[in-house]
Structure formats: C-alpha cells, structure tokens
C-alpha cells in the first residue's frame, strides 16, 4: 500500500526522464508507448487503491519519504497524503490524463517535437499528482509551480509566431500574481501554526474563532492563488489566450486538470474556509461574477477553442460558487463531470481542427455532421452534458450546485440558473455552427475532410460514455437518495457539507429538470432556425445577407423580436465585456502594472550616470540620511 501509493507520481516522472533525455533519439512509436504507458500504470495503481477504498480496506494515510526542509522549528516533510478526495482527484488526473495522452498520439503524429511533447505531458502529470497528493501546503505549492511551468512550456510548444510566446508570457505573469498570494498564505500559515502539514494546520485551526482575521487572511491569500490558477476574475484572461497551445494540452491542462487545482485547493482547505465565512462569501461572489461574465463572452466568440475556453472559465466559476456555498462535494462532483465533458469537448474540437487542417474559426466550419460522425456524436453528448440535460453527467452536478445555492441565497441561485441558460445557448451555437448547416470553408478542403484515426476517436468515445453516465455517481435525493459521491467524500468534508438530503428540495429539483428540458428545447429550436435555416454565420453583418432573405423578415418576426430584445443586448454585453472591459480594464490593469515596472526601471537606471563624482555625492547623501535615520532609531539624535 505504502509503496504503491508513492509510485503513482514517479512513474510519469520516469516517463518524462526517458522521453526527455531520449529526445529525439527515441522513436515516435516508443515515445508514445512510454508516454501513455507510464500514465496508464499510474492509473492502474490509483484504481487498485480506489477499489480498496470502496471495499473498505483503506484508510487515509500519510506517507513520509524524508524530512525535506528543517529550519528552526519548521519542518516540512517530503510526504504524500492519500484520502478519498485525493483518490477521486487521482482517478480524474490519471484516467482523463491517460485518455488525452492516447489521443495526442494521433493528434501530434506529424509533429517534429513528438517525443518532447510527451515528455512535457508526463512531467505535467507528475507535478499534478504531486499537487493533489502532497501532504502539506509546501508540497502542494511545488506541484502548483510545476504544473504552471509545464503549462508554460506546452502553451509555447509551437513557437511559430510571437503571439504564442505572448500568450505564454501572459499566462506566466498572471499565474505569478496568484502564486504570490499562495506563497504569502503559506508563510502566514507557518507563522500561525508553525507548520504547513494538512493535519497540523487543520487541527490547529479549531482553536480560532469564526472569522478570526488571521484565518480570513490565510484563506483569502490562498484564494488569490486559486484565482490565478483557476482563471477567475480578475486573473482569468490568460486562459483564453493559452489556447495557443496544442489542443490536447488545452484539454488536459486548461480544462480537465490544472485549472481545477484551485478548486481542489479550496476543497482541501475546507476546514479553514469553514472558519472564515467571509472568505467563503468572497469565493461565491468571485465565482459567480466569473461564471456570468465569461458565459456572456463565450456567446460571441468565433474561435472554437475560445468558446470552450470561456466556457471553462465559467464552469470553474460554478465550482467556486458551490464551494462558497459550503457544498464542497458538489464542487468536486462538478469538477469531475466537467473533466469528462470538457476534455471531451476539447478533444472533439481538436478532432475537428485536425480534420480541417488547423482551422479554428467557426465561420469556416459547418455541416461536418456527416463527415465526422464519431466526433459529432461524442460532441453532441458532451454538449448535452455541459448544458445540463438530464440524465447526462452535467445535469446532476449542476443541479446539485443550484440546489445548494438556493438554500444559501436565492439571488445567487437565479443568477446561476440564468448562466446555465447562457451555457446551453453558447454550446448549442457552437454545435450548430460546427456540425449543422453547410460547410463554409473552401471546396478544395471539403474533399479532404475525413474522420480522425481510431487512436483519437476511441478516447472520445470513452469520454462520451463517462460524460453520459458519470452523473450517476451522485444521484440527487429526487432519484432515491443514493448520493454515492457525497458519502464517499464524507470523511473529508463531514463537518461542512450541507447537502440537501430530503424531500423539501424535491420540488426544486423537479422544477430544474423541467426547466432545463424546456430551455434546451427552445435553444435547439432557435439555433436550428438561425444557423440551419437562416444560415447565419457569426459576425457577418446583416446587410450582407441576400435580398430574398430579408423578404422573409415577417415570417420570423417573433424570432427577430427575440433577437432584438434578448440576444442583441446579450451579444452587445458579450462584445462589451470582451472588447472593452476585458481589454481595457483587466488586461489594462495587469499590463499596466508590468509597464509601470519597466518604466520605473528605465527611470531608475538613469541614476547610474557613470560619473564617479555623482556616485560619490549620492553615496555621501546616502550616508548622511542613513546616519540620521540610524541615530534617531537609537534615540541619540
């Protein structure tokens, strides 16, 4: 047990070393076997542990490898911690990670840096596993930094143009701001508890009163870290830009695993957060604002990966709202289902992009349903899942979050519910633009489009099954009170989860089911009208449309009102938030900080005039000031 647990992260590390050192001498074939195989072995070990935990012969354990940092009273062990929450995360990371690895074999097949790609991916898995398995916050931070580094390497993997490097830079800077919060939080933890070990910190926190300012500070600082890593307001804009990397990277890092690290961290520190309700409210507000804002932006995007990226940001907001409402297991539940369907969406998008020879613009897609049948069906399942259509996975997890928020604050519930509608809207828009209607790219290309190889479609299918059935791990009360996941996670969240167990919410759940079905039906109808019948492609201005089309104006009178009253303002808001707010306010603030530093640097360096006389004079003035300061500090002046 002990030994096998430790092996989980180190097998991918071995894969990284072999592929990294061997590149480019190891053949692509071997690189693929090593890359996928190492993750698969980790998956197998994790599965064994997981099954043990189901049969009850498992207890959460800390495996200490060695004392790592010993300084004064501070002792940080290089140790791993495995409990039910870790196991769930392990299953997601290794399972989904493995599928994405397999998929990458097909996707990256023609790339020169094939072996290098796999070595980075394995390194990423290693750090991600360290992140979720660390037994203290320092270990978590090591993993945290490591995944950041890999993300950085992989975003910039194709450095064909400057924009990619710029995206990598942006991701880097924004994550550093987050890390700053995290590291200060850890420092504060050391001061307060003298340790960063989970058990000691959580045990020590019970001595604090509710909303004790130290606890609020620690939790808020940690949350700043989560904001950076999980792309929440105001540090979210790096994620859409990070889509410059290869699509499997987007699926693995920017959808399924790394970006959820913040969610994991908050869930892991749930004991701290429960002592600081103020922080929980901050978490809720930030999560909610992010969910709404990015959903609004997603509606108008024309790049398929950008839509998915904003959608990811929005879904992460959901998870934080769940955690802010103390429904940690719901947050983790959504994290899991999201990993399934969002990975699937990205991989599906990747399959489309692959088939279209790296065309990502929705405007140039359409009608791919027949040409890419497997991709279409799996993406369809994922779209239903993310839109929350029962009984797909997303339905259950979203439903749970909605119920949890309703108990806490109806206002949050309604905003979140409206966001769900938006989610369905932009996802179906994406689906229709891609697969329905007619192909809008060149004819020449049209003939070359064919379904991706099996090595890519099989992972899609597996993920589709998971997206469809994954929700049954957490059946809500309505369907017979067998919420397996929340029981499974009970040891971790026991004191905090406020899950509705019984009937009073049944009505609410029925309402949600019915409403969801209706809303999705309406959206389906509307998309069909707009994108199939009217053949509206995004961002084509109305007066470019042919005359006969305008004559049919009256026929779709209702539709137009709908368009004017609801869609247009929404689109306007989307444009506004995307174009003005994001570009000016958020990017402006972040870039401004950077530019100010550079400017300051340019000014400050001017004091190095090169003239000895000036230097000496400045030194003497410095001496005078220092003497005055020092003497007055010693009360002698």
């Amino acid at each position, binding site marked *: 047990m002990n030994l096998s647990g430790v092996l989980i992260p180190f097998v991918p590390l071995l894969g990284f070393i072999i592929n990294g050192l061997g590149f480019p001498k190891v053949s692509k074939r071997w690189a693929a076997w090593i890359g996928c195989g190492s993750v698969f072995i980790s998956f197998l070990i994790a599965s064994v542990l997981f099954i043990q935990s189901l049969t009850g012969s498992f207890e959460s354990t800390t495996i200490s490898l060695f004392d790592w940092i010993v300084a004064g009273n501070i002792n940080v062990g290089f140790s791993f911690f495995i409990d039910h929450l870790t196991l769930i995360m392990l299953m997601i990371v290794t399972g989904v990670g493995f599928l994405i690895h397999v998929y990458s074999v097909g996707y990256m097949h023609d790339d020169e840096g094939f072996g290098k790609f796999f070595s980075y991916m394995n390194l990423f898995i290693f750090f991600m596993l360290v992140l979720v398995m660390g037994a203290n916050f320092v270990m978590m931070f090591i993993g945290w930094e490591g995944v950041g580094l890999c993300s950085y390497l992989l975003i910039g993997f194709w450095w064909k143009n400057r924009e990619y490097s710029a995206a990598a830079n942006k991701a880097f800077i924004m994550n550093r701001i987050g890390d700053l919060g995290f590291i200060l939080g850890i420092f504060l933890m050391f001061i307060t508890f003298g340790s960063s070990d989970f058990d000691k910190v959580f045990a020590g926190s019970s001595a604090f009163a509710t909303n004790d300012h130290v606890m609020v500070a620690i939790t808020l600082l940690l949350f700043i870290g989560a904001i950076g890593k999980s792309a929440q307001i105001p540090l979210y804009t790096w994620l859409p830009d990070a889509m410059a990397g290869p699509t499997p990277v987007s699926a693995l890092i920017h959808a399924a695993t790394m970006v959820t690290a913040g969610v994991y961290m908050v869930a892991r520190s749930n004991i701290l957060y429960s002592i600081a309700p103020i922080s929980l409210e901050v978490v809720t507000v930030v999560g909610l604002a992010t969910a709404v804002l990015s959903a609004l932006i997603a509606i108008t995007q024309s790049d398929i990966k950008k839509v998915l990226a904003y959608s990811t940001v929005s879904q992460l907001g959901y998870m934080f709202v769940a955690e802010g409402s103390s429904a940690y297991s719901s947050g983790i539940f959504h994290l899991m289902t999201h990993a399934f369907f969002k990975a699937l969406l990205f991989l599906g998008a990747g399959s489309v992009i692959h088939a279209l020879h790296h065309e990502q613009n929705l405007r140039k897609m359409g009608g791919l349903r027949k040409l890419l049948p497997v991709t279409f069906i799996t993406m369809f399942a994922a779209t239903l899942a993310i839109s929350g259509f029962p009984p797909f996975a997303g339905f259950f997890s979203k439903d749970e979050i909605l119920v949890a928020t309703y108990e806490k604050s109806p206002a949050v519930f309604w905003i979140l519910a409206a966001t769900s509608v938006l989610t369905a809207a932009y996802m179906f828009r994406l689906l229709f633009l891609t697969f329905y209607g007619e192909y809008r790219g060149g004819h020449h290309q049209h003939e070359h489009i064919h379904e991706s190889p099996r090595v890519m479609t099989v992972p899609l299918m597996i993920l589709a099954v998971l997206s469809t059935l994954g929700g049954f791990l957490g059946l809500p009360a309505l369907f017979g009170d067998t919420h397996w996941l929340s029981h499974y996670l009970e040891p971790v969240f026991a004191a905090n989860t406020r899950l509705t167990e019984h009937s009073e919410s049944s009505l609410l759940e029925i309402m949600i089911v019915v409403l969801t079905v209706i809303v999705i039906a309406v959206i389906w109808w509307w998309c069909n009208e707009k994108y199939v019948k009217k053949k509206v492609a995004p961002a084509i201005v109305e007066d470019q449309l042919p005359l006969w089309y305008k004559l049919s104006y009256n026929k779709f009178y209702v539709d137009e009102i709908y368009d004017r009253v609801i869609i247009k303002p929404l689109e306007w808001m989307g444009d506004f938030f995307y174009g003005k707010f994001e570009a000016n306010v958020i990017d402006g603030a972040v870039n401004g900080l950077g530019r100010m*530093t550079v400017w300051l640097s340019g000014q400050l360096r001017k004091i190095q005039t090169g003239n000895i006389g000036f230097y000496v004079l400045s030194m003497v003035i410095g001496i005078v000031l220092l003497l005055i300061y020092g003497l007055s500090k010693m009360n002698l002046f």
Partner: protein
Amino acid sequence: MNLLISLTALGVVAMFGGILKFRSMVMPLSVLGLIGASLLGVYAWNTNQSFLNDMMRMDNYAIAFSIVCMAGTLLTILFFHFFHSENEIHYAEAVALMLFAVAGCAVMVSFTNLLMLFLGIEILSLSLYVLAGLRKKDLLSNESSLKYFLMGAFSTGFLLFGIALLYGATGSFATTQIAYQLGIAGMNGMAAMGLLLLMIGLLFKVAAVPFQFWTPDVYQGAPTIVTAFMATVGKVAAFAAFLRLFQLCFAPSKEGYQLVIGTVAAITMLAGNIMAIYQSSTKRMLAYSSIAHAGYMLIAVMTLNASSNGSILFYSVAYTLASISSFLIVMVVQQNRNNDTADDFNGLGKTNPWIAFALAVSMLSLSGIPATAGFFGKFYVFSSAVSDGFIWVVAVAVISSFISIYYYFRPVIAAYSKQTHDPVMTMPAGTQALLILLSLLTILLGILPGFIAGII
C-alpha cells in the same frame, strides 16, 4: 590558521610560477592547494581554536565560509584557465592575486579583532582593484578598475572612522572586549556613530543601496571571469564578515539598528530588481541581480538570530553556484555571438542543449523557483525574518523576487523559444562538464537542502 598559511604560500607559489616560468604548473598546483587547504579546514572542524592573542578564531563559521570562498576561487581559477592560455601575459599573476584575495577572505571570515577585519578587507579589495583592471588596454576595464578603486578607498575611510570611534567608545579592537564594554556602558553617541559608519563601510562592500553605484559599472567593465569572482567570492566574504562582526559585537543592541538594515535591505531588493529589468546586457543585468541578492542576504543580517549564520551560508552556496555558472555562460555567449543581450541566447536550447539547461537551472535558482538551491536560500532567510516578526520586509522581498522572475527568464525564454541561424557555440573543453556539474549541485541542494543548512 594552517589554512591561511597554506593559502598565502599557494599565492606565493603561483606568483613565482609566473616569474620562474613554470606556468603550466600553476593551475594544477592551485587546484590541489585549494583542495588541500579545504581539507585542512575540514580537519580543524569543531576545534574552535583562537590564535595569537585572540586575533582570529577558526570556529566552524569561519571554516565553513572559508571553504565556500575557496570553492568559489577554485571554480574561478578553473574557468580562468579554460578561457585564458597560460602564455597570456599576466596569467600566473592573476591566479596569484585570486589566491591572495581568498586568503584575505579567510582573514575576513575568521577575525576576532577589528584590525584583522580591516586587513582582510583591504587584501581582498586591493586584489580586486587590480583584477578589475586586468585588461589593461581595454578602456572599460580601466574605467571599472578606477571606479572601484576610488569608491572603495573612499568607503574604507568611513569604515576606519567607524572603527576609530568604536575604539574611542570601548577602548579596544577586540570583538569580545567591544561587546563587553558595550554591554556595560550601553550605546552612547560615539559607539552608535562608530557602529553606523562600520555598517556603512560594509554595506558598500556588499553593494547595498545607496552604496551600490559602483557595482554595475565595475561588474560590467571587469573581465567576465573577474566579475564572477567579485560577485561570488568577494560578496560572500563581505557578507560573512558583516554578519560575524554584528553577531560578535552588536547582537545585544540589535533593536536599535535592525530597522536601518531592514530598510536598506528592502530598498536594495526593490531597486536592484527594478533596475535590472531594463538592462539589455546580460552581464550588467547580473550585476543588478547581485545587488538585489545583497538585499535578500541583508535580511539575514538584520534578523541576527540563531539561524542567521546557517541561512547566510546556504544562501551563499546557492548564490555562488548559480552566479558562477551564469557568468560563465555569459562568457561563452560573448565569445561566440560577440555580445550578451537576451537575443544572443536565441536558440541555445537547440544548438547547445546542455548549456541551455545550465542557464535555465542557474536562472531558476537565482530567481528562487522551488526545486533549486536558490529557493531554499530565500526560504531560510525569509522564514527566520518572519519568525522574528519582520513580515513587511519579507513581503517586499517576495514581491521583488517576483519582479526578478521577469528578467531572469528573458535569456531562458530566448534560449528555448526563439530560433537562430547561428552555429553551435564552441567552448573550451571541460566548460560544459563543469556547468552541468554546477547545475546538478544546484538541483541537489534544491531537493536536499539539509546538507548545508544545519551545519553551523
């Protein structure tokens, strides 16, 4: 003591190596001698002997820092040997000066009398003034030498004035006596003035703001290998002496001046890191970075508690490893691409993957990214400051080290993410192996810092 004698003898041997024309023996003899001297140091471990009327004491602190300085010197001499043929005009003399300088360092880190401190500082400084001007026909080298000399001599004046006032206040140059007298009489105006002026003299030597002016110019103008020597051995010895002086003499009255050092540390870190951003020359950038590192190390001097010695030692080792290898890489790049801006590192990852690896490791370590020695260097320093309640200083330190990531990563990004048409870089045999060794040491210390941290 044996250590000091053997170092001096070694210097004399190297000097005669130049005069009596057995230059080819200079490098091997120096390397063997330095290793031997280090072994003598190890042999004297825990003996804690003091010498000749308590002028110096070879305690573990002194031995540890002497060995760090000697190791730095050994690396510098090796690199010097790689890049300069032994038939060059001042080959043996330069090696001799480095050996004399490290003898000065040994005096500086083991003194128990202010006179010894003064002599040690002067031996080191005079050697460095000359070494900076080693390229006699290079105007930048000339300028760097003169700047260093004039400002160094000027600051020595303040140091001496401080010593004199302290002598006036306490009646002795011996650290034990000074501490004893200050303990009886407390701080009066003269003692405080002496303390502050001594502090100013040492702040100059470690290049803290506002006495940093000489650093970028001197580092840039001096021959790159000499710069590496100054930035590592010189700085480590200066810090060791600084900390030793304050631990031995002024520790009980630290409440009075802690804030002064803390303020200087904070300004130094911020200014060093911010000014580094704008630099196009990597060598000059490293000079500013060394200013910033002086700020971080000053934090340990400020806290002046039980863990300060260990944390400065670890920081010194981490910093020495990373700095020497980064200066060496700059040297390689300068020789191959004729310049050392970030663009000259383009494509290094493709052409010379190992050099790029060493570059990445040393830059990561300098910026304090986890899993490198630099991280723990910062960690120890910061954590001891935090435990003493200096949270604001640590906050400034953390913020400024985040700023530093920006410029440390520039050459690394260039090396890995940009293309080049330039050919594979060539370098003297052995350079690459040593660079890899240094990087592995950096990583090793980043994973197992316990080796060094708890030693003194």
